[in-house]
């Protein structure tokens, strides 16, 4: 089964989903990502979905799960690169991405992660 590569940039993990995922692959990614966050003690996770042509309720659930798990592990998740057609469809579908922060691209995503981590640190 194919694997989705997870890169480490500083204290962040970056995942770029390039393939049309079937459910098993999505579940595998979820597990692997959680494991890696623990292993690397990452403070931020960025998921780049700019290559995804659709986000259905299963993938939506995967994103929500990842966000929830990372929060428990004291990290933030930011999803970047959502295509307009996907965003419009998600709104119509009624899918709420709870706990998932979003940014337009990788640059603003990293900036957002920095801001969120800093805010959290200040609040402590």
């Amino acid at each position, binding site marked *: 089964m194919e694997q989705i590569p997870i890169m480490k940039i500083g204290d962040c993990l970056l995942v770029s989903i390039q393939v049309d995922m079937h*459910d098993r692959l999505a579940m595998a990614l979820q597990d692997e990502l959680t494991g890696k966050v623990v292993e690397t003690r990452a403070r931020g996770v960025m998921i780049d979905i700019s290559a995804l*042509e659709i986000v259905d309720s299963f993938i939506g659930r995967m994103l929500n799960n990842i966000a929830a798990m990372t929060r428990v592990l004291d990290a933030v998740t930011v999803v970047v690169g959502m295509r307009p057609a996907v965003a419009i*469809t998600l709104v119509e*579908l009624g899918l709420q991405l709870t706990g998932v922060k979003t940014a337009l691209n990788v640059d603003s995503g990293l900036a957002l992660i920095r801001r969120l981590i800093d805010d959290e640190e200040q609040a402590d």
Partner: protein
Amino acid sequence: MNIEKSTTMPVKAAEDVVRVRQAVRVQAVDAGFSLVDQTKLVTAASEIARNTLEYGGGGDLLIETLRDGVRRGLRLTFTDQGPGIADIPRAMTDGYTSGGGLGLGLSGAKRLSNEFDIQSTPGKGTRVMLGRWR
């Protein structure tokens, strides 16, 4: 109204859900749908394909390109011989799920389509039809 062309494909394995998405995308592009409409069609198909697989024990998809005068449309019919749905209205409410999902499959797919029809007999099977016109 007439059927310009039709394709059938199995929805019996996890990989089939991906194939369904690709096939519906191809037919939607062929029929001339806009990008947003294509996305809605493919997303709705993905939802029902998953349902057919997870709850229906696997089934088939029939993709038909329709023409009604100047209008063109795409009709997707998913059938399975699974346990069926006893309470369809309940299954259609947002958030209702018997399997730990987000409960948006049926209701979501309906919202994404111009036409939606579901027939189900407990013990016999289910048939879901999605349609979108240009």
